[in-house]
């Protein structure tokens, strides 16, 4: 850890909040992508069965 | 077009048409402000121009979904759209009718409400002028918002969210003009900017409103 001095709380809050927000965004995107792909594959499989 | 305008005005002024609702809301805001910030007359006269502008803007926002929603529900809008009248003209008339029923009464009533808030003497002229120039922009922008959300079941909240940031420039310059007028400062820049925004909006936004209305009627 670098020496953050008296502003440690602020710097860590800023980094923490940003990283959390970005992680949420990335995970949400990946999850939506997986779900969309699965549903599409299911729909395509049903079409091919017929 | 004149027929459409008179029809809209008649509908609005009839009982239950919502005429006066905006004005009443404006009055409520103005009356409640002294209760919430305290009766000190110096403070009130400082914030009077801003409060009056804010009241006018909120009252305007309140009445926006009436511009097109009723005509949408009873199918009038489809009829008007198939008539030879250009849709750009229709939305302009709608905005004009909205301004005549909400904006204009507020402009006329504003000096009276200014008295309640202890508005400084030189401020009255500038307050009325800024509202007279600024409120048409509020009506036109509001019509655009109403055209965007007309097909939605509960578009009221969304309409407010969409229109809110679009109102910011008008509010800033309008309130600034009224404030500077009340303080006796130079008023040329905000006056020109406010007038510029209003005229620009009146000239261009009806095309966007007509475009989205056409999409919604598809």
């Amino acid at each position, binding site marked *: 850890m670098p020496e953050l001095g008296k502003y440690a709380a*602020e710097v860590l809050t*800023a980094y923490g909040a940003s990283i959390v927000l970005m992680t*949420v965004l990335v995970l949400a*995107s990946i999850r939506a992508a997986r779900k969309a792909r699965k549903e599409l594959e299911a729909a395509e499989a049903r079409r091919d069965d017929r | 077009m004149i027929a459409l305008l008179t029809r809209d005005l008649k509908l609005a002024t009839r009982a239950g048409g919502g005429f006066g609702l905006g004005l009443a809301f404006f009055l409520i805001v103005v009356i409640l402000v002294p209760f919430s910030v305290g009766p000190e007359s110096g403070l009130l006269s400082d914030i009077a121009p801003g409060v009056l502008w804010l009241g006018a803007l909120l009252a305007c926002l309140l009445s926006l979904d009436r511009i097109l929603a009723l005509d949408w529900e009873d199918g009038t809008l489809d009829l008007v759209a198939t008539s030879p009248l250009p849709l750009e003209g229709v939305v302009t008339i709608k905005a004009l009718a909205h301004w005549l029923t909400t904006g204009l009464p507020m402009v006329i009533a504003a000096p009276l409400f200014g008295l309640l808030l202890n508005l400084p003497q030189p401020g009255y002229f500038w307050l009325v002028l800024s509202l007279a120039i600024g409120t048409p922009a509020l009506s036109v922008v509001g019509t655009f918002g109403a055209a965007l959300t007309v097909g939605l079941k509960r578009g009221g909240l969304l309409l407010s*969210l969409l229109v809110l*940031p679009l109102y910011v*420039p008008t509010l*800033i310059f309008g309130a600034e003009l009224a404030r500077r007028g009340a303080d006796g400062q130079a008023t040329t820049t905000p006056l020109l900017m406010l007038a510029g925004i209003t005229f620009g909006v009146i000239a261009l*936004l009806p095309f966007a409103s007509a475009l989205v209305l056409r*999409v919604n009627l598809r």
Partner: protein
Amino acid sequence: MASIWEYANPVKFSKTASAVLPWVTVLAAVTLATGLVWGFFFTPDDFRQGSTVKIIYIHVPAAMMAINIWAMMLVTSLIWLIRRHHVSVLAAKGAASVGVVMTLIALITGAVWGQPMWGTWWVWDPRLTSFLILFLFYLGYLALWEAIDDPDTAADLTSVLCIVGSVFAILSRYAVNFWNQGLHQGASVMRAGAVTGTDTEEKVSNVFFYPLLLCMIGFVLLFVALVFLRTRTEIHKRRTSALLARERLS
């Protein structure tokens, strides 16, 4: 060189996106991690601002992305309205969610930074105010997408909103500047003199600049990866609903 419009074909776009996505993702992760670690661990403190300068490595790139993403949405919305390419408008939709998060990050880090430096979380400074307005624009845009069922209607309406909103966003920027002069320093990163070191006033020195540049590139790459991913997601969703509609008919 193939025409760029070929990528307007959803299938072609999906294929390219799938091929490119892993590379961009890895590249984004590497640049972003390097930039942030470099900035966080290996840069000195500013003699006036102490360790709070480290916030710059997130704050500035996020703010830059917040504005540029809206500009990108403006372009793709125009392309949709003029040439009716579905991929274009879906990219705008995918970008908006990234944009709203970037704006939020810029606002939060700005507030956390402003607290020790200016002694307040929030001031009605022109830049802060503009970002708040931009945040409202993003929210309105996304809310409109969510509210409308028919995808083409939603695409048309949000595109028009994006274009009208852009005009008003610029107007607001000037209005807000006029309204309050503010505490924020002027643009100090991308000013030519500041980079070459010829102007001495409020420049960001090279010690801070290189990791910052890396972070900016990292944010851009992250954005590109997310837009590819989200656009492909939207394309998949569209195709699923088309298939479902056909199932119901048959």
